[in-house]
């Protein structure tokens, strides 16, 4: 498999195929991790996306597929991948749900506690975020990193190369707008 670092380089140079390849590689990995985590004897329904992203980053670095310098690029991208992993797994879960054994999935991020919980909420946030992307892409980016990626404000600030204060401002606005949209 081509190294992620090389893919990131090509992607940054505008190569669309590299973007797809990177997405596929990261997606597969994050999906496996998320699966394993959720299986967990069926008890855990809280998905700790933060640790998933960090774990996959470390694995890629340790296996030599990703240079540590590409941390920023990887993180910028991983929340997007994480989002589709989560959304797809929620859709699967909803499709499979039977009997009383099923419990809603919860994300261990701030927004989850503040706005809404459960599988349905994840999908609704996903949809509201799609609208927000068109209305105010910066807010949507921060919200995606926060909600689906579970990044800290500091991590987001580093990734986007803005101040933490800016991230806080964006996040507050995004949260209020999403709350209004989901209500």
């Amino acid at each position, binding site marked *: 498999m081509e190294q992620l670092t090389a893919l990131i380089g090509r992607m940054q140079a505008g190569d669309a195929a590299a973007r797809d390849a990177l997405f596929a590689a990261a997606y597969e990995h994050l999906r496996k991790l998320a699966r394993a985590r959720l299986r967990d004897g069926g008890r855990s329904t809280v998905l700790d996306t933060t640790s998933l992203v960090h774990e996959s980053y470390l694995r890629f670095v340790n296996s030599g597929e990703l240079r540590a310098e590409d941390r920023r690029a990887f993180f910028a991208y991983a929340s997007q991948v994480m989002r589709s992993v989560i959304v797809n797994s929620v859709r699967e879960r909803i499709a499979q749900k039977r009997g009383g054994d099923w419990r809603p999935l919860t994300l261990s991020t701030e927004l989850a506690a503040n706005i809404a919980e459960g599988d349905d909420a994840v999908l609704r946030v996903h949809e*509201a975020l799609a*609208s*927000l992307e*068109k*209305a*105010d*892409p*910066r*807010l949507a980016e921060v919200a995606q990193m926060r909600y689906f990626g579970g990044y800290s404000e500091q991590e987001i600030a580093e990734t986007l190369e803005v101040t933490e204060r800016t991230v806080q*401002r964006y996040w*507050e*606005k995004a949260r*209020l*707008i999403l*709350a*209004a*949209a*989901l*209500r």
Partner: protein
Amino acid sequence: MGLSIRQMAMMSRLLDEALPLDANARRAWLERLPPEYQDLAQALRDALLPRDHEAALHQPRFTPDFTGEESPWSGCGLHGGARVGPYQLIRLLGAGGMAEVWLARRADGAFKREVALKFPKHSGLRRDLQQRFVRERDILASLEHPHIARLYDAGTEDGLSYLSMEYVQGLPLTDWCDGQRLRISARLELFLQVVGAVQYAHDQQVIHRDLKPSNILVTETGQVRLLDFGVAKLLESEQADHTQLTSIYGRALTPDYASPELLRGDPVDAHTDIYSLGVLLYELLAGARPYRLERAATFGMIEHAVATLEICKPSMRLEPQAPAARGSTQEELTRQLRGDLDAIVLKALAKEPAERYPSAAALAEDLHRYFRGEPIEALPPHFTYRLRKLMLRNRTTLAVVALAAIAILAFGYAFRREATNSVEVSAPVRAAAPPAATPRATGAAFLPPAHSVAVLPFTNLSGDAKQ
């Protein structure tokens, strides 16, 4: 209920205004929310005043009962179905600190069309102003332009003044442009529609006084409609020294679009609209406004700020998301704005009215010059600037001329060479004579400069010419 993309974009913008305020200021801000944002009132209240939101849980959400007795918006005591003069109210379109706007239709069935009825609050017009009100109303009602929403009528019924206006459904200009990801040229075309409408009104001696995106809507078909032309003046009651400012403050979300003289309370003329057009153009191009005034500031602070503020070129103040919203990149957009467009915007924004464009038409004309690649008025008549424009404008001609020049020179060169050769042939005996080399040397020395004049500017400038 969910929010549309348009509502999300608006809410984001409105939260920028309100989040920095403390609870009391937020409450006051919500009270003054202009009618056009009324569909977001509940969402904004929930976002800005979380405790109020708890209390509001028992009320039906998102279908606020505007007509209810306790509703904060029923300032005029009106309700759906009520008759006002010849009109029957249908529903409240919005309400703000200064006015309520209702959708209404003619009760007598004289016209089928629906109208927007605006009821200014505190509308007890002084008797001596009634006369003027009628006169002004007639002038405004005579404005007829494809890009100006019609004022049909204005009247007073049981002490309640109202304006009946064309009901326009559309998006604020800036939101529309961003939503459509319009490029600079498309934005300028819409802006020129606005400028044309303003010039038309100025020709009828009507000043808008309150030009801002929320008063400039774009309909589904992409046509601009200016609302509330001259209404600010009509509603002005001349009670206090700072009436103009209070009315701006009361009605508008932000005084950011008001000219320095309007903020000072000085008499205003058409130049005040030119200034507001400048702010609008700035925002359309760069995504940011030239400055943002804190609502909490006192009149004096605002006056001072606007009077002393150094306005930065739009190309230097691009909003981070502006390039994407204009289908462009940071570099391309900066390059596009730098120079002509910067200068046009800054001329419209001159602090001294006399230094701005003398008319909306002059502003439009300069934008047309920019489109045609001619030197603009806003820039000093510098020789090299004019020459560059001339060359850019006449790229094709220049290329033809250059080619012709090369052809002529080449021909001349060949001809002389031919002549020289024939001299050489006809006089082989005088081989030692040096003059034979002279024509050749002259021709060779002459040709390269011709090349550099003709070819260099041509290739060099063509990269610059994506306008």
